[in-house]
Every structure is written in C-alpha cells, then in structure tokens.
C-alpha cells in the first residue's frame, strides 16, 4: 500500500461557504506532506474531515486502504489543531496520560509512554505542575507530545511551530523527521513557506476550497521555473548586450538573467567565455514556494466572500 490516505472528491458546504469543493489527492505512506493555502482556503475543514470531526457532504476518504471509519480510525491519527489547548487546571502528567487513554491506550501503557516522552523533551520535572504554570512554548511542546504519544500512523500538525523559539522549533522539527523515518505519515498545514520547503516532500496548495497545485516540492518548483539563472563573475554592463537573454538584475558582478526563446544554458556560458569574462558560478534559480504561492493566490480576492449555496 503506497498511499496511507486518499481523498476522493471531498465536498463540504456550509450555509454560506463552499469550504471544501471537490478535492482529491493522496498522501504516500511515510511522507511529510504540506497542506498549504491562504487563510480561509478550507484547510481546517479538510483536516477536520480527515480526523473524523466533520463528515464530508460527498466524496470518500480511504485510510490505510479501507474506507475511513470515524469510530475506529481516529485512534491511529494524532491531530494538533490550530486552535489548540489543554486543561489549564489539570496536572501535566495526568493530562498526557488522559489524552493518550482517550486514544485507546491502557493507563499503564499511557503512563510509561508519557514518561518516555517527558524524558526525551527534558520535561520530567513538569509532571505535577499545572498547564497554567507553563509558558506558551512549554505548553506547545507538551501539546506536541500529547499528539504523538499513542504512535499514530497519521500525524496532523496545524501550524506546529507558532509560538516556539528557534531552539524548541528545531527540537520539534527533528522529532517530525524521526517520526517520518519510523513510518508515520505527517500532514503539515501552514502558510510559512520556508518551513514547507525545508520539511515537506509533497505539497498541495488550496485556495477557496479547491486544489490548485499538487506534487513534490521539486516538481512544483520545476513546473514554475521561469528560466532564470544566476551568474557571478567579473561582469561589466556592456557584456550583457545580447539577444541570448534578458537581464533581470545586475549588481556587484552578480547577474540574474532570463533565457530567451530557444537559448540553452550552455549558449550563455559559451557567450560569456567568448567575451573573456571570468565566471565564478552559474546556476539555475528555481522560484521559492513563497513566490509560487503568492503568484497562484494573487488576483483572487483576499478574503473569501460569503455566498449563498442552494
């Protein structure tokens, strides 16, 4: 089974919104998957359907090769929602054990795993503290632990790094990689593109309830590449007077150029070598996901409008 999760034509309409409008994609087992989209794109609604909180109006979710069972499958899912929190007055250790028990673990097993994870994150001394005593970053770590404690095969993290300092963000990032190596599949929902480029292999971009893009990060970048190259060397402005490319920018001996129709990279190199220009580096510039994101979402109204759906 290559795919842990397959979504087929999922739809969820609310009174005034087509929150999720006919979305299909699949997520390979063991991958780190980025679900991207601007605010209000329908990401949270989609995630709530995957976790069994909402039922789709139509369409199917195939989980682990079988139709998604909202009674049993949530036990194999760990969900850290964007709107997340913990019981403020409850002791941290008890809370972790309780949440793991709700996911079907036995009390003894839950306690043992909680202790393991607390050890891993150096949180042992917190066991008898209450959540209200923790800083935001600390409770975020705790939240992550409670999400993954029951060894779910699918982990859904909605903006997992918000509120974390770089050290703790790194700690969590390392754990995410480890979990994926151990076979867990991770859905990572965010609008922080630099994190997606760093962490995810596959992405889906959503806007207004629909899927806009789907593929591996590399593939998406290749699809959107603009034939832009960067060349560094001892350049002068008069060297760039040619029809082989057009100049995007030039400063301090660093040239960004867009290849002309039918021009190959080697033609450019050849041209500069013939011009006796000393070349230090020459490489293709792929667009960042951020650029692609903005380009794709641009032009659509910033906020979704309320509409009547009959």
């Amino acid at each position, binding site marked *: 089974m290559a795919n842990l999760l397959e979504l087929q034509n999922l739809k969820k309409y609310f009174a005034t919104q087509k929150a999720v409008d006919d979305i299909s994609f699949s997520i390979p087992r063991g991958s780190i998957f980025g679900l991207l989209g601007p605010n209000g794109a329908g990401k949270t609604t989609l995630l709530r359907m995957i976790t069994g909180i909402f039922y789709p109006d139509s369409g199917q979710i195939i989980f682990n090769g079988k139709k998604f069972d909202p009674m049993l499958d949530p036990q194999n899912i760990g969900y850290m*929602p964007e709107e*997340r929190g913990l019981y403020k007055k409850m002791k941290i250790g008890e809370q972790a054990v309780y949440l793991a028990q709700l996911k079907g673990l036995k009390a003894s097993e839950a306690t043992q795993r909680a202790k393991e994870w607390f050890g891993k994150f150096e949180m042992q001394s917190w066991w008898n503290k209450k959540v209200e005593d923790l800083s935001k970053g600390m409770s975020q770590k705790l939240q992550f632990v409670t999400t993954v404690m029951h060894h779910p095969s699918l982990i859904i993290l909605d903006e997992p790094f918000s509120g974390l300092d770089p050290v703790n963000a790194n700690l969590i990032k390392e754990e995410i990689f480890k979990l994926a190596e151990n076979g867990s599949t991770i859905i990572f929902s965010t609008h922080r593109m630099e994190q997606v480029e760093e962490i995810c292999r596959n992405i889906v971009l959503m806007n207004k309830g629909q899927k806009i893009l789907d593929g591996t990060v590399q593939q998406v970048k290749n699809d959107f590449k603009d034939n832009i190259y960067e060349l560094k060397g001892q350049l002068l402005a008069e060297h760039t007077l040619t029809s082989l490319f057009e100049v995007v920018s030039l400063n301090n001996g660093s040239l960004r150029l867009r290849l002309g129709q039918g021009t190959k990279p080697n033609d450019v190199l050849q041209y500069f070598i013939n011009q006796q220009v000393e070349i230090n580096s020459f490489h293709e510039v792929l667009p960042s996901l951020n650029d692609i994101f903005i380009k794709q979402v641009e032009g659509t109204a910033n906020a979704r409008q309320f509409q009547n759906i009959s």
Partner: protein
Amino acid sequence: MSKVGLIIGREYFTRVKKKSFLITTILVPLLIMAFYAIIIIVAIKGGNSSDSGKLAIIDEAGLFNDSALSSIKQKGFELVKNETETSFVGKYKDKGYLGFLYIPKVNIEKPEGIVLHSQSSISLTRSNEVSDLVNNAVEDKRLAALGINPEDFKKLSANVSIQNTIDTKEGGKKTVAGISYAVSYLCGILIYLMMIIYGTQVMRGVTEEKTNRISEVVISSVKPFDLMMGKIIGIGAVGLTQFAIWIVLFVLLQGIIPLLMPDILNQAGNAASAPEASSSIGVMKEITNGLSTLPMGKIIGWFMFYFLGGYLTYASLFAAVGSVVSEDQQEAQQLVFPILMPIILGFVIMTNAVQNPDSNLALFGSLFPLTSPVVMMGRITYDIPLWQLLVSAVLLIGTFILLTWLTAKIYRIGILMYGKKPSWKEMMKWVFRKS
C-alpha cells in the same frame, strides 16, 4: 463506551478532589448543625439565667405574699422593703442589682404604672420572666378575689394537641402537618438549587473547554456527544456524591450530638427549671416523631429520580449554551435566562403547591416536564396518585431524551465555533439540519 467512562472519571475526580468541594460538602452542613446546636444551647443556658444578675422588686401593691418569696428568689428576684421608686433609683446598682421592678399600688382589675428600671436594656428572656412573674401574681390575686384556689384553677386549664392521622392502605399513620410541609418545601428548594448549581457547572465546564481550545483536541478522539454526556454524567455523579455525604453526615451527627453533649439533653429533660429549653426540645421531639411518620423511602427514592431527571433535562440545555458562548460572560447570561425561566417558574408553582397540593396549578406543574422536578417535590409528602407520578416520570424521561438529542446538535457545532455568538435563528438551523 470506555471512553465515555474516561471522561466521566476525569470530570468527576477533578471536581471531587478540589478543596472547594470538600468545604461546601462537609463544612456547610456542619456549620448549619453547629448553628442549630448553638441555638439550643443558648436557649437552655438562657433559661437558667443564673448569671444574668439579680432584679429587685419594690412591691407597694403587695402582689407577692411571703409564700411566693422563695420561688421568686430562685428565679433571681429579691423583694426589697422600705424603699420607694425615687429613693431606690440611685442605689440599686451599688447594691448589686441589675435593675428593679417598681409595682405601685394598683387596681388588680386594671394594673397600670408598673415599671422595670435598669441601666441597660434587659434581655428578652429576662423581661419575659418579669412579665410572667407579674401576670401570675395578678392572676393569683384575681383568683383569690373570686374565691378560687389557684391550684384548682391550674388543674382546669387545658392544653390539648390534636393528632392528624392519615389513613393509608397500610393503616393509620400519625403525621405532623408542619413537618410534611417543611420536608416538601426543603426537597423542592434542594432540587431547585441543585439543578441550577450543577447545571451552571456543566455550562462553565463546556465554556472552559471551548475557551481553553481543548474541545477540538478531545473530539478528534471521541464523539462530541460522548464528550457532552461524559461531562453531564460526571458532574451529576458529583451531585449524587454530595447528597450521599450529606445523608451520612446527618445520620452520624444525630448519633454523635447526644454522646458529645449529654448534659444538654439532661438539662433539657429538666423541663420545670428551663421552660424555654423544654419547648425547643419538645419541637425537636416533634420533628423526630414527624419524620418517622413520613414515608422516607418513597421520598428519598423520588427525590433521587427527580434530581437526576431534572438535572439531566436541563444539563444538556446548559451544555448547549456553554458551547455557543465564548469568553464573554455577559453573552452567557443572556442565553441562560430563557433556561432559568422555567426553573424559576417551577419554584414559584412549588411554593404554592406546598400549601395546595391538590390544586390544578400544582397538578399542571408536577406533570409539565420542565417544572415537574421542583413542583413534584413540593407535593411529595402528600399522597400523590400513582398515575400522576408515572405520567410525570415518563414525560420527564421523554423530554430529557428529546432535549439531549436536539441540544447535542447545537453543542457539536458550537464547540468548534470561535468568534461571534450565533443567533437564535442560526442555532435553530443547526438543530433541524440533517447531519
């Protein structure tokens, strides 16, 4: 199912382990008991009045003859001779009297001008004693004038108590009207208070989960309905625990008080020396007697039923309200008001039903499921026809199931909504939308 059990357990233990639970459950009834005990003690001690100071009597009218002197002395009075009102006013304090009673020469038929002098105001018991003393003396004089022996007169006076016997199938039962009234009233008030207190706890619990943003985390593990029911049942169990503790405490204290303070009861037994105490002990005896004649099993059984039924019916409504409001407490108050209305209406009908348990209003109130828990309790010590109890019970259970089913739909959506409070119209849409 085991997950509902987990939720019930969490809701139950986090509340029961709190200090405030122990305080309200154990300290409050203890305080009430202590208060009760103090009243009795004060009544008894006050009756002895050994330390409240002597009172002098200047008897110009000759109300007290020599034979009465000794009994007067026992009560802390002393007859002072060869003094007048004006001459004694300046002296009584130095002679160690609390005050003095001046009885001028009076007409026995129309005694006027009797004055009690004192430096500070005299206690109520003491002044009652003084007027009893004077009245008895005047009565004796009047009897003597008519040629009746006071002893004979006392034999004639009547103090008859009338026993109300309720004829039931098991035979005649003695009852005390005041007691059944009090028990009905108390049960009604208790149910009323418990429904509001525990209903509000459900509401606050739900709002807390929502504002702490834990709802979504939890319902990715369990169904929203399970979470709601777990909370309602858990908090209901806290209420039952509180009742159980109260009953145990009550029974224990009833056993312990006589052991701890045997002298109080002994003194109380000395009715002659302490008329005040004897009356309060008499009331206590009457209460115990009255309670023993009531069908306690039936009352406790139906009390539990109506507490659970009423609580469960309203708890789901409170949960729904808790799920739609956010941090703003004022919003909660606005939405809670329509829920409190029928509870308060029930209370009003109950106060009436206690006095007229067979009126049409009482009948309506005890069948209508939103008021029946409180109103039926107001009639519980009276003989309610079985069909009324059964119809009321079935209606209550039916309403509970219906309301829970409807409000669960609001709850399910409400706990995931942040920001604006939904309008009534929107909430109705949630209720009637197919899921």
